[in-house]
């Protein structure tokens, strides 16, 4: 019926008309399954093809046809459009926030060259990082620089530098390492928080005491006190933010208990500072504390500088007594730049750690738990000495990398030159194997450390959590300490009667007493 007609058949208009109408109405038949009809479909497909004029139109015909057939969301359906609107709004919001980063502060029009500009030259560092193949891309680094500038304007800081980026599951952390100006420390914030929490604890303890009278343990486990600000693991303060342009949050200081616990667990960061850390052993704190503890460990393990850049202050060295090690250093003004080839040699003698090693106790300087019990007289002096815990020692400050312990039989650092084709101008790059993501580079008198990673230590063996403590033994049951129910009144009466009968039996023998009431 629908076969091609030859020209001779065009003679009869009525036949052609009816055939034409038949065939056209066939094309207009709507499908019982999808409701489409062929005529409209072909019209749409051909219109689209003619509008777009793709190459090899005959080959992509099926794709167009399939696309047309796919159910399109009706214009009145709100789902997609609302979600898209939301998306563009968040994009817009972030862009506006970040725009503020690029606005100049007041009074910056008079270009005063300050001697002590707290932020390093970010663009220079970003150039070197790029040559070394590490770090973030240039635009992001520039934004980091602007965000740091913002930070220094809001807080009285002496130094601020970009520490690195730690990835999280839902959101990432950008970390800035700062040093407050002398005397301008904002201790209020952090201590206020701690005071509040201590008070809460005290109140809770008091409440509990009132409620139960069970005897408390006399033996008190002494808590290792955290190090003072600006010393040891709390030498620097850290600020984090999730997205550049958003306000920086200060991380609380780290306590030795947190470092000790952080060494035993391995958890991904979620990106929310107030997220709880559920682990065994239970971590004393939330994600902000865990983050701070990991940052402390990473800094202690991987912050390095070319040998000679920092040196001990001579005054400190003179005041040395036998045990104390200098923990402060100054920049060596007579530093001679080390050639890149030496810095990149695998013997690692030209780099030193400039952050103190954290002892197993969780602090950088050993704290003797016996010192707290000064008030208690110890009768036996010998016993005291024997019980004296061994002070923990770690490698001293400014010790070279060549003294670092091996990781799984391999060197803990990987060194390389950034360029093989132009070694004269190459940058020396050092990468840590113990903390994957920790990098350092050095070029002439410029060097920098950065960490970009997930915040975990490397171990060749899989992580196995700490085993739970064995079940405590029960006290052996003896009849002497076994609880027995108090006798009930009936039992008491029965016992008393039994007693009286015995008495009466005895007394009957005497014959003095009369049974009768007469």
């Amino acid at each position, binding site marked *: 019926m629908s076969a091609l007609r030859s020209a001779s058949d065009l003679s009869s208009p009525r036949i052609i008309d009816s055939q034409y109408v038949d065939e056209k109405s066939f094309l207009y038949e709507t499908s019982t399954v999808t409701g489409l009809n062929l005529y409209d479909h072909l019209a749409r497909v051909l219109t689209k093809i003619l509008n777009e004029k*793709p190459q090899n139109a005959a080959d*992509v015909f*099926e*794709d*167009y046809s*399939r*696309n047309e057939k*796919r159910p399109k969301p009706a214009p009145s359906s709100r*789902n*997609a459009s609302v*979600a*898209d609107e939301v*998306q*563009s709004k*968040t*994009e*817009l*919001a*972030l*862009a506006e926030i970040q725009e503020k980063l690029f606005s100049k502060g007041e009074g910056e029009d008079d270009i005063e060259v300050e001697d002590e500009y707290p932020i390093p030259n970010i663009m220079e560092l970003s150039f070197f990082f*790029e*040559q*070394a*193949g590490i*770090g*973030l*891309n*240039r*635009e*992001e680094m520039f934004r980091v620089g602007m965000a740091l500038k913002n930070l220094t304007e809001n807080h009285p800081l002496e130094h601020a530098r970009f520490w690195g*980026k730690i*990835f999280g*599951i*839902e*959101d*990432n952390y950008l970390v800035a390492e700062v040093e407050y100006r002398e005397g301008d420390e904002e201790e209020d914030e952090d201590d206020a928080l701690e005071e509040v929490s201590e008070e809460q604890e005290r109140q809770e303890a008091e409440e509990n005491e009132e409620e139960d009278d069970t005897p408390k343990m006399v033996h008190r486990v002494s808590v290792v006190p955290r190090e003072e600000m600006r010393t040891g693991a709390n030498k620097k303060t850290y600020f984090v933010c999730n997205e550049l342009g958003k306000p920086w949050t200060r991380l609380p200081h780290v306590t030795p208990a947190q470092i000790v616990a952080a060494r035993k667990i*391995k*958890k*991904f960061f979620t990106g929310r500072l107030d997220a709880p850390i559920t682990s065994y052993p239970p971590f004393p704190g939330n994600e902000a504390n865990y983050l701070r503890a990991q940052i402390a460990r990473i800094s202690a393990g991987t912050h390095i500088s070319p040998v000679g850049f920092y040196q001990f202050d001579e005054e400190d060295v003179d005041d040395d007594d036998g045990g104390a090690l200098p923990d402060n250093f100054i920049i060596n003004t007579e530093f001679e730049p080390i050639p890149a080839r030496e810095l990149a040699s695998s013997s690692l003698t030209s780099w030193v750690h400039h952050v103190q090693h954290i002892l197993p106790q969780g602090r950088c300087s050993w704290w003797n738990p016996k010192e707290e019990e000064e008030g208690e007289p110890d009768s036996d002096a010998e016993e005291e000495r024997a019980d004296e815990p061994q002070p923990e020692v770690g490698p001293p400050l400014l010790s070279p990398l060549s003294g670092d312990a091996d990781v*799984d*039989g*391999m*060197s803990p650092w*990987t060194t*390389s030159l*950034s*360029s093989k*084709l*132009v070694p004269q101008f190459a940058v020396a790059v050092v*990468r840590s*194997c113990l903390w*994957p993501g920790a990098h350092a580079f050095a070029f002439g008198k410029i060097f920098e450390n950065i960490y*970009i*990673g997930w915040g*975990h230590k*490397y171990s*060749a*063996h*899989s*992580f196995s959590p700490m085993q739970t403590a064995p079940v405590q033994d029960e006290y052996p049951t003896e009849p002497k300490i076994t609880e027995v129910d108090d006798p009930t009144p009936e039992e008491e009466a029965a016992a008393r009667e039994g007693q009286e009968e015995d008495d009466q039996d005895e007394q009957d023998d005497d014959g003095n007493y009369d049974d009768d009431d007469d």
Partner: protein
Amino acid sequence: MNVRNLHLNIDFLGSSGVVLSTEQKSTLQSSLTVVQHNENFGDLYFWGKILGLNKDYYIIQGTPKEPSAFERKTLYSQDCMNWGLLIPATEDMKKQAKVITGRFTGDPAYEFEKTIISVRNKEKETPELSVEAEEEEEEEEEEDDDESLDLDQKTVSMKEEDRMAAVIANIDADTALVPRGAYVLDSLGKIYKNRLFEGLSPFEASKLDYYFHFRKPSFVDHRTLIVRADLDRAIDFMDNISEDIPRGCWSIQQERGGSLVTIRSLYWVGYTFYHMPRTTEYGSAYVGTGEKNIDLPFML
């Protein structure tokens, strides 16, 4: 990611710490053009970097001009100039690679050795494997605690090159993301790129359900009929990543306020995938040590 605009596309991964130095980018531009011509590849992809102790490996993958399913040829180089072909990994190699742990050294001819001590319990027929780690040729002392235990020692050794091929195959099997709709299955069973793919909408891009593994589907047919009725058989023929075990092994984030979606794998740490919604830009790269994160269940 496609090498056609490598120096621009690598910027998308910049916020994940994946950075190529200028020297590397320019070397790659010339050497990859040569490779593409010599090997007659239709498409060439920069797969990523495996970090070794002394040197790193740069990996690229190419698809033939007539794409047939999920076939890809893998090449590696240490200086971005000279590329060597890696033999495709066999099942045996993949199994062996799962046993060997430790970092890649950077020397393709290095031999990894691992001694597996398996204990065969006489009462049960099934042998229990307990793996002792060692890299040098040290003899382990057998501990015969129980007289009824038979100890079997088996040494597995693999060349670094082969291990690399196997690790790359394993990573591809577990990752290799593509957005939904990017590839089409036609009625003849051929898979090819969807020329009409316009990118996911911002709403879709933020959901893990809209991303697939680019590999032979293994559990598409296990879904219930009700679910299958809603799927479009032409594009939903690959495995969804939201069904990966353990749940939560993918981290999806929106950067730049939502105009760039980054998906990172927590199982193979270092694998990053990016997609710009409403555009056809998507790609992925792996920059890492080449070791699986077996501790993942403890870390979530």
